[in-house]
């Protein structure tokens, strides 16, 4: 029987979460190639939207893909090219970031960025019933980051929590370390930090530690990095919780696509992978010590 080719196009591993996502994608492909000998996978990683479009064009022109699993770098620029793939008759699975025109994809495995911000904000509000002063570290300036921050801001509205400083830590440990050091110099009193990402939380914690400041009660990261989940599990008071944004959603998407290609099972539709709050109570079920992320 004919082999079918599934193309997987994702952003390159330029920060922790994307790294985790890259890992899961490769791991899923390896696994599925064994399970389904009739499937062939092509994986391409791109460092900007333009390159991702190139990758997709190449997959169509030279590998004749029958299905495309794409985690768009950005929604807007990828919409038209993915639409073209769809019009060419291939199956399209979109992951995490929706395209800007609805109804192109056969399958949408969605992350929930506003939800991620909202869950984080709600936790903050609950943890600081009397309000307080917090600083926020943002990611690389992107729509995702905007959605998260908006979700967060609307969730803490009216809770008495005041954001006294907000800077870009670019989802990077070193940048967030520097930013946090400077926040600590600038504000004599910081009650809590929304690091919005576990990689940034690592930098933030190191800065707080080094400054020897005890006014900061806790740091809330996000994404569910194993070290952070472990600290939540261990009841670390600085890391009382975490919010998931599982990079493994790509694996879910690839797997569902493979199933869709090889069987008649109905896999189309939208699967939303909501962001969940990890607390010491449920941390165990989110802890995967073998994952790189």
């Amino acid at each position, binding site marked *: 029987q004919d082999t079918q080719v599934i193309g997987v196009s994702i952003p*390159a*591993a330029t920060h922790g979460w994307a790294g985790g996502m*890259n890992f899961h994608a*490769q791991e899923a492909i390896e696994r599925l190639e064994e399970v389904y000998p009739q499937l062939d996978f*092509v*994986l*391409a*990683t791109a*460092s*900007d*939207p*333009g*390159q991702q*479009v*190139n*990758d997709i*064009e*190449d*997959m*169509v*022109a*030279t*590998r*004749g893909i029958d299905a495309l699993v794409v985690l768009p*770098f*950005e*929604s*807007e*620029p*990828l*919409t*038209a090219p993915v639409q073209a793939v769809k019009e060419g008759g291939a199956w399209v699975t979109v992951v995490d970031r929706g395209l*800007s*025109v609805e109804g192109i994809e056969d399958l949408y495995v969605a992350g929930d960025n506003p939800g991620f911000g909202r869950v984080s904000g709600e936790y903050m509000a609950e943890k600081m019933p009397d309000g307080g002063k917090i600083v926020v570290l943002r990611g*690389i*300036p*992107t*729509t995702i*980051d*905007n959605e998260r921050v908006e979700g967060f801001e609307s969730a803490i509205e009216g809770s008495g929590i005041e954001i006294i400083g907000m800077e870009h830590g670019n989802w990077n440990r070193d940048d967030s370390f520097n930013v946090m050091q400077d926040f600590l110099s600038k504000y004599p009193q910081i009650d809590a930090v929304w690091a919005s990402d576990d990689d940034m939380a690592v930098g933030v914690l190191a800065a707080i530690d080094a400054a020897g400041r005890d006014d900061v009660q806790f740091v809330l990261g996000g994404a569910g990095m194993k070290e952070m989940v472990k600290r939540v599990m261990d009841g670390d008071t600085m890391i009382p919780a975490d919010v998931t944004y599982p990079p493994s959603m790509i694996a879910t998407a690839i797997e569902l696509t493979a199933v869709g290609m090889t069987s008649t099972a109905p896999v189309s539709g939208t699967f939303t992978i909501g962001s969940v709050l990890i607390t010491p109570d449920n941390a165990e079920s989110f802890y995967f010590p073998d994952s790189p992320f």
Partner: protein
Amino acid sequence: MAAETADTVPARRRLPSMSVLGPIVALVVLVLVGAFLNPNFVSAANITNVLARSAFIGIIAVGMTFVITAGGLDLSVGSMAAFIAGLMILVMNWALPTLGIGIPIILLGMAVALVAGLLAGLLNGFLITTLGIEAFIVTLGSMGIYRSLVTWLADGGTLSLDFGLRTFYRPVYFGGILGISWPIIVFALVVILGEILMSRSRFGRHCAATGSNEHVAHYSNVDVNRTRLLTYAMLGVLVGVATIMYVPRLGSASASTGVLWELEAIAAVIIGGTVLKGGFGRVWGTVIGVLILSLIDNLLNLTDLVSPYLNGAIQGIIIILAVILQREAKAKG
């Protein structure tokens, strides 16, 4: 940055065939490897894809060839492209209610891109020539400035062209005549004009003279500052042209548009045999450089590698090998 030794005749003059062959051989080897790995590699569709997408960097790299030949450097082109794309989209979206979808609004957008490019280039050029600041610093600075501005214009997100407008504008990238798509045609035109300008015009000579020895050029009544300024202005306009082709392709601009284009353009120029310290440049070489770089990416997508993490390593090795191949060819000549 090894300079030719003063007392060896550059092979280019003695045996033009070998150094002309150098980059071409590298390109041919790459094409053969590709065709061997996957027959689709030489399919018309793939070739069109590769050529069309090379057009952005290619058009910019042609301008960069002049800047480098005249002894300059421009690190800002990538973020300049992003900024111009953003501006173009904003202006077009803003004019949409007035002008409606049609040729005029596209022309407006194109005009904005060209004028913005020209101004950005002139600004770089002015700071470098009139104020006499190192090109590296000026363009590093303006790189940061444009990148920031586009992020700010897009409010950290993405600036998108109105969807209807985009559909109307799309053929500028995807359409063409006689089966050749517009970006390829424009790229070819820019290259031909660039090659003529470099090798057959007074301006081209003045660029080489300025880059080779600015005092000599100055003494010989070459307006060194004007020549340099013009190279930056021209590069700016070409960035505008590239953006005109880029916007219909992706219909959007964001902080990640055009990241590292500057490095890619400079690399293409140097792979093509232009001397980084100035004084000698060739446009056709740059084209080969651009094609080599695009093909590497394309090739990597064609084949299944050990790990996509290693793409960058393979790319790096091929770039170095391509240049070694040239040197070897030259040395033998």
